[in-house]
């Protein structure tokens, strides 16, 4: 799935047993696409030594503090760089 700047997204809530670049504290969180960084080989596959890891779109996603730490959290907002397979469209 491809996203544009301004799109609302939700991160997967997946207990990955392999390599992932989706930090646990950002699983199942709502955020907003703030930048498209281009396509890069997916580290989740590349880590196993695969020379032909699929390229996936990478996005900077901004999360409000309350979306990450709970509604009483005022700050900080966090931006993380997340691959398309970690993201789904949010309402």
């Amino acid at each position, binding site marked *: 799935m491809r996203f544009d700047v301004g799109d609302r997204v939700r991160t997967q809530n997946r207990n990955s047993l392999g390599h992932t*670049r*989706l*930090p646990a*504290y*950002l699983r199942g969180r709502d955020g907003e696409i703030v*930048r498209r*960084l*281009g396509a*890069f080989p997916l*580290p989740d596959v590349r880590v196993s030594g695969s020379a032909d890891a699929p390229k996936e779109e*990478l996005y*900077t996603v*901004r999360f409000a503090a309350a979306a*990450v*730490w709970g509604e009483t959290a005022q*700050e*900080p*907002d*966090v*931006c*993380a*760089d*997340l*691959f398309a397979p970690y993201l789904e469209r949010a309402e």
Partner: protein
Amino acid sequence: MSVHASDHEASAAASNRVKRLVAELERRGILEERVLDGIVEDFLLHASPANGKRVVARAWLDAAFKKRLLDDAGAAVAELGIDMSHWAPVELRAVANTPRQHNVIVCTLCSCYPIALLGPSPAWYKSEAYRSRVVRDARGVLAEFGLQLPPETKIIVWDSTAEARYIVVPQRPPGTERLSEDHLAELVTRNGLIGTAAV
């Protein structure tokens, strides 16, 4: 900020694994030690916070350069002869502090860091304490570094989880209007480029 003992232990364990791996690759004739040393030396020779300081000083003096830096940092630093793509394609991002917004960099997953622009990272940057706390209590962590931000300044934490590396462009200190580019560069600190200091 102190580094927890477990970080040193983890670092020592990783270091031992790397040494054993290198020794095994040499034993099998896959790698020559002097070749590896040459590659590392060549990389570190040009990797220094002096690069990041130079970039910031230029941004302070040249608004058009600053705009290009924030838009496409890799291309902008290449104008100054700095090569970010020594090992692998790396996307460089520069984020600018303003009176309304302060930026701070972390890698919560490991220790990703723009080595070409800042040199090797400080031990605290790799510590579990910094990595786990700055995303949750940035204001508290920055205060421990001696940086007290006004309440109206919003803090954004940039977690370098993938192919992008980040540097902070601090605000130009007041009273520096007459300084040359070289003198301005001297004002910039490594911590300022990470976001744990004002400049």
